[in-house]
């Protein structure tokens, strides 16, 4: 079917979701680890516009933007479909994936970074977004229904990355009493062998987030 390579960084949740998709479909691939603080000519060649990971290389073509890559993988390798068949259900999946990346992820990160007076407000905002996701998983085993799907992969960053952000940001975000359904889904999701296989080590993530948050906070302090 052609050679498949992933240019990625094991600390990037956007890259992990690509690996999950490939593993679930039994696609063999080569992983090229990128040092995002020292970008390689290969990355710059294959993603000149954003200069970011992940990039999927397939048969000499490159594709960037993780949600775009997920749809590409689903269309090329049709076994174990990720997106639902029904057009309206597909639309709902796309809507929530976009919402998760634009509101939940950014909101969680902002809450992690926030300090002092702004912190509680940032946590409240992040939890408002999480509440929508909680409603979406209520009554379902996976976001994809009975089996894991595109939306599970798009939201799959939550169990590990929010835990890391909670520790680094010294806050509680995904409290079990407030988000029982998300907690239940997290346990089922994180237990799946293909999911576990691709997760970065918690320690490495903690280190990475500590460094990023400290750097961003110092930038903001210097502006004042």
């Amino acid at each position, binding site marked *: 079917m052609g050679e498949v390579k992933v240019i990625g960084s094991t600390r990037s949740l956007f890259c992990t979701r690509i690996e999950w998709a490939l593993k679930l479909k039994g696609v063999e691939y080569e992983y090229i680890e990128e040092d995002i603080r020292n970008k390689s000519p290969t990355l710059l060649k294959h993603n000149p516009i954003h200069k970011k990971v992940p990039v999927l290389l397939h048969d000499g073509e490159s*594709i*960037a933007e993780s949600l*775009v890559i997920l749809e590409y993988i689903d269309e090329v390798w049709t076994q174990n479909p990720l997106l639902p068949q029904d057009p309206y259900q597909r639309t709902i999946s796309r809507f929530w994936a976009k919402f998760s990346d634009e509101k939940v992820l950014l909101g969680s990160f902002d809450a992690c970074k926030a300090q002092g007076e702004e912190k509680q407000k940032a946590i409240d905002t992040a939890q408002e977004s999480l509440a929508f996701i909680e409603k979406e998983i209520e009554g379902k085993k996976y976001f994809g229904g009975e089996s894991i799907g595109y939306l599970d992969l798009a939201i799959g960053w939550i169990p590990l990355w929010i835990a890391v952000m909670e520790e680094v940001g010294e806050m509680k975000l995904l409290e079990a009493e407030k988000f029982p359904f998300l907690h239940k889904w997290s346990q089922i999701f994180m237990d799946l062998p293909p999911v576990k296989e691709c997760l970065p080590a918690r320690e490495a993530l903690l280190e990475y987030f500590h460094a990023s948050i400290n750097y961003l906070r110092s930038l903001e302090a210097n502006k004042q």
Partner: protein
Amino acid sequence: MGEEVKLFRGWSSPYALRIVWALKLKGVQYETIYEEVSNKSRALIEYNPIHKKVPVLVHNGKPIAESLVILEYVDEIWKQPPLLPQDPHRRAMDRFWAKFGDEKVLPSIWEAFKKQGKEQEEALSIAMENLKFLEEELKGKKLFGGEEIGLVDIALGWLANLVSVFEEIIGLQLMPEEKFPHLFAWMQVFADIPVIKESWPPRDKMVAKFQALREVHLSKEAQND
């Protein structure tokens, strides 16, 4: 078949226009409900409780929000003429460019529009870098979709209207023809397509609205100094 299609939209929003174009190109009959940002209807809030924004498409009672998500839905339900190609790699590229338009091009042009002085110069230079990528992508093509209008043309079509409105207001060129000959030519071809031409919101109202918006932004900036 008893198809019921409703589009909740604002009169000037470039996001809503995308849906209008897609529905018209595909010959879909639909009802338009105009919404005021400052006075949102109960129906809108019920159909889009998450963002409370337009556009929202309601198809047989089922609501869909987020214009690029709506476009893909429209393309899957009403298949002719297709907006996305069949080939997975080309589909991925189309999605990539549509996303690039919304996440980079549009915000950078908006920044250049609402700032002044040195900040405007810097914003303008970023906007032009983004436009250069689009210019490259258009080489050898009549439209982003090739010979026929496609998803990327629809996603970027706001350029063909808003750029000249913004340029008139700020008195600066955002997209000079010498620097962007392909984009310039594309805007003419795109704007000439009948369905596109007939759907532009009234230009004088657009100029007045965006002039007012710019003044609000500039005075907010002045207060922050």
